[in-house]
């Protein structure tokens, strides 16, 4: 037996810290169009390599190439662009509103808009997302009213959750958007359960679980894979790898040479890794995975490689732990600019139309904001009542709670 050296602990560090100049020239990504597109009923054993590569459709010239490129109509493409622009404008306004003290907290999507905006386009009415706080694109692309979103953020009287939840914790059964929890990852296994219920009742609806790469370390992620694989649940399990979990880089939690997608391999779940800043790649993969679920072929695990360009939340200052320039240096580019380039490349868009669209979108968002603020903001206007605080703990208020409500004066 070999003699034993003194052991030591290995603690992974990100490539760059404040003060470093981020340089990704050594990092190579697979070329757009280079990854195979298997049939949806593929034997998962045959596509293990897809857990370690990256599916990409849009190349450097804005062309959609390879087996994952699907024909989208110009209107569909423009709708995609507009959704992302709307999300970006919405984020900008709400971020500012928070800075102005109109609400307590906000979380933006900057750089990740393609993931939720594109995925939504593969869903049907009745399907259910179990999102995290960074998938508002599902609501926007799904046509949920901006005013209602803002009322939630402002905790005003228009908030359907009566001011009870932290800003951005939306909920809409009708729009297939499960109520967001503050506890990371819990929704992931619930998505599996929801989809199992659909299967048990012989329904045709599917569920989609969402999680950040950091939160894959949580218990619920594992339970979700165990249950989804055991019962072949009709669910799509999405991991949004935006490289950061607050101040913690994705190397903490990913483990050595693993990928988040590869977590699925041990369960025999088909697993894909996709360029999350490529609207077309996201949509193609979303269609593939949702089709598998609809055909009762079971779960799919998808990792979206993207980058959180903004702070974690309004409570965060990323310049304390990563170089300011990292977001620009990040090699996968900006999802809005990439789809815009594609639309221009296919002759369906122009710089002028883009500038105009941005202005229109901003007008729409500002109009919605005005409407929401007419109802109120966190500290002004019409608000949910303290009485609302006592409602909905149970379907029927039990005696002790009624006593407490009276004691509180309501």
């Amino acid at each position: 037996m070999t003699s034993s050296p003194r052991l030591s602990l290995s603690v992974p560090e990100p490539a760059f810290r404040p003060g470093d100049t981020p340089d990704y020239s050594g990092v190579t990504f697979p070329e757009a169009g280079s990854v195979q597109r298997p049939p949806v009923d593929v034997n998962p054993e045959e596509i293990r390599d897809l857990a370690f590569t990256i599916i990409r459709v849009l190349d450097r010239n804005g062309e959609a190439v390879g087996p994952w490129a699907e024909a989208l109509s110009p209107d569909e493409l423009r709708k995609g662009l507009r959704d992302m622009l709307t999300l970006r404008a919405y984020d900008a306004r709400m971020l500012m509103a928070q800075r102005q003290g109109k609400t307590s907290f906000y979380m933006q999507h900057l750089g990740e808009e393609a993931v939720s905006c594109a995925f939504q386009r593969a869903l049907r009415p009745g399907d259910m997302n179990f999102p995290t706080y960074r998938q508002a694109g599902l609501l926007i692309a799904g046509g949920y009213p901006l005013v209602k979103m803002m009322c939630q953020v402002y905790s005003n009287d228009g908030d359907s959750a009566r001011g009870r939840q932290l800003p951005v914790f939306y909920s809409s059964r009708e729009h297939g958007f499960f109520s967001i929890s503050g506890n990371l990852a819990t929704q992931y296994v619930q998505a599996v359960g929801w989809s199992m219920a659909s299967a048990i009742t012989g329904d045709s609806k599917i569920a989609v679980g969402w999680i950040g790469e950091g939160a894959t370390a949580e218990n619920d992620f594992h339970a979700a894979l165990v249950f989804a694989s055991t019962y072949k649940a009709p669910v799509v399990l999405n991991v949004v790898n935006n490289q950061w979990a607050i101040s913690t880089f994705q190397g903490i939690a990913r483990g050595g040479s693993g990928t988040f997608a590869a977590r699925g391999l041990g369960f025999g779940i088909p697993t894909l890794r996709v360029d999350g800043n490529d609207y077309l790649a996201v949509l193609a993969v979303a269609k593939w995975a949702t089709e598998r679920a609809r055909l009762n072929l079971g779960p799919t695990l998808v990792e979206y490689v993207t980058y959180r360009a903004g702070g974690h939340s309004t409570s965060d200052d990323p310049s304390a732990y990563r170089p300011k320039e990292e977001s620009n240096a990040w090699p996968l580019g900006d999802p809005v600019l990439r789809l815009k380039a594609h639309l221009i490349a296919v002759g369906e868009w122009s710089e002028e139309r883009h500038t105009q669209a941005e202005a229109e979108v901003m007008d729409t968002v500002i109009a919605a904001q005005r409407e929401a603020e007419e109802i109120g903001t966190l500290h002004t206007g019409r608000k949910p009542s303290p009485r609302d605080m006592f409602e909905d703990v149970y379907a029927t208020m039990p005696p002790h709670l009624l006593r407490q409500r009276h004691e509180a004066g309501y």
Partner: protein
Amino acid sequence: MARMTMIEAIQNAHDLAMERDRTVVAFGQDVGFFGGVFRCTAGLQKKYGKERCFDTPISELGIIGAAVGMAAYGLKPCVEIQFADYMYPAYDQIVSEAARLRYRSAGEFTCPLVVRMPTGGGIYGGQTHSQSPEALFAHVTGLKTVVPSTPADARGLLLSSIEDPDPVIFLEPKRLYNGPFDGHHDRPVVSWKKHDLGEVEPGYHPVPLGKAAIRRPGSALTVLAYGTMVHVALAAAEETGVDAEVIDLRTLLPLDLDTIVESVRKTGRCVIVHEATLTCGYGAELAALVQKNCFYSLEAPVVRVTGWDTPYPHAQEWDYFPGPTRVGRAMTQVLES
């Protein structure tokens, strides 16, 4: 009137509920083909199919987490945690999710879920097959917590729990599964089948949540108990000759405070009994409520007789268990003080 063990009564409640309502599903570890390690789901898979009654992986979190999703979809899952001692891995899903879903979505999503789990000791199960974690549920707003003490209640309360639109924690005192154990571990337990308390009327008869039962009317003092301790308290009253009014709480949350207050105002004395550890146990809440609501009627301090503040030991199980001797002694002391 048929007689049933508590196990049969629980099985029967599943059967009645699943027959009546296609949205009721049952699952958990060993719950499907085998029918549960305590046999509470025996025969259900055969009768209702694998899609409505099935085995799960050993993940309490997965069981509850999936059930929350199913409940949000519109099913009524009635799931088993093999021992209450093993609910901790699922505690987050219970506390942060099942209990909070209606509130945080203002009723848009709800969670009509029943979580069954055997509790309590007395089977030489050691510290991880004996716990009584009811206080850990009663402290959580959004949950209801139920503990039956007879087969009829087990069936009736379980039916109501399944009907309930909110998450219910259903704690089954495993020492009562086969008979009304009164703490005399050295005597043979009478089977429910040979005991009047084992009588269960055939058919669908829910017992409402939130209503206590007076198991023994009395005037000298009030005993508040639930689960196994109801039978221990009855034995203690019998053996000491103290004319105790024994109240079986049945539902810990929502609590039937009126029945309690009425009784203590009448007797002026109160003994609280549970098997869980003392500190911050459910008895603390009861004592706090009783002293608050009956202050001017109380002639002696409210006394708690409970498991000691130690893990549940294996060999010293009967030194740990608050049996009829300890309960009887407390009753006598409270009478004399």
